[in-house]
């Protein structure tokens, strides 16, 4: 599974990255976490608020930091 964090480096983006790492780590999920910081690349996903969370190329959230449970649920679905 490939997880992408979209964000140009704002505080909330780092926050989300941290959170995803924790959820992945504590649930022994094998996933590759990638950061997308280039604005042109971010825009390809069609989001208008950062941070964005993309799992297997599907945008799951933008502009919010989802709860741990929500992130875990998305991860389990994939």
């Amino acid at each position: 599974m490939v997880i992408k964090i979209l964000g140009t480096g704002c505080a909330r983006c780092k926050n989300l990255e941290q959170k995803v790492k924790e959820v992945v780590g504590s649930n022994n999920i094998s996933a590759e976490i990638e950061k997308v910081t280039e604005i042109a690349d971010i825009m390809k996903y069609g989001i208008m608020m950062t941070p964005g969370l993309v799992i297997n190329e599907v945008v799951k959230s933008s502009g919010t930091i989802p709860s741990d449970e929500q992130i875990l649920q998305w991860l389990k679905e994939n």
Partner: protein
Amino acid sequence: MKTKNANIYLAALIIWFLIYWFLEPGVNFFVCNILGLDKTSHITETIRFFIYEVPKVLLLLVLIVFAVGIIRSYFSPEKTRKLLEGKSLFTGNVMAGLLGTVTPFCSCSAIPLFLGFIEAGVPLGVTFSFLISAPMVNEVALVLLFGLLGWQTALLYLITGLIIAIFSGYIIGKLKLERYVEDWVYQIKAQNNNLEEAKINFDDRINFGLQAVKDIVSKVWIYIVIGIGVGAGIHGYVPQNFMAGLMGKSAWWSVPAAVLIGVPMYSNAAGIIPIVQALLEKGASLGTVLAFMMSVIGLSLPETIILKKVLKLPLIIAFVSITAFGIILVGFLFNLIY
């Protein structure tokens, strides 16, 4: 509306009102009777001002940010974009200005938002109306103006801010500056993500409001404390009418000067408004102060530099100078009226 914790929220609201209601007599009692300070001295006035205004503004902030957070949960950049797509110039500008006040926005999202709007075919001038109104007319500024200067000034700020956003965007649209947007912007083809609007109930909206309170209050409280601290110092120690010569009506140049100083200054509403209030008290005129505030909050150098990624220099200059000109005009107008 059904919520799980309706009673808790109601209780919290009642407690809020009680604290707000008894804050002033409480502080007066504390300062005069418990600390036993001399009522007439400067230092007492400064202390009283500080320990009354800080909790008062924070209380207002919590309530309003919470309410605005709930309102914002009904809006999203995607919905706003849909509303603005293909709108004619003037109508589009008015709508963009209004929507800018309620759509969730943070300056770090200015670029993706700009690109998302342009890519969807929202006209450039309409996009700018949104980008001017969103940071300038925000709930933190309005709360502070309301708390420290009264609802009239808050309303004045809201209306003039909107007018500046609408007309600046309109002029930018009329000038046909599209060629000064970086070329790659028009080549973006975003995937159409059907980010489904998650069904949210009222409890989620309340959580959205609480989250907004947490995010915003944790970010701005320190500015409020420092701002009111400095304000309290000015309040107690700077002589009456000290600012009249410098920022008063008689000094016509003070309006453009205030804007020139204000644009490169980077502060948020929370830090600047308490100081502005103190300046007003010492003889600065409303128009000058309003212009200063708007240029600090609405136009900021770091944000403009971020925009450099997507805009060529002539468009940035046009954006800053048209907006600054609008602010100066508003400043003069208010100095004339009041």
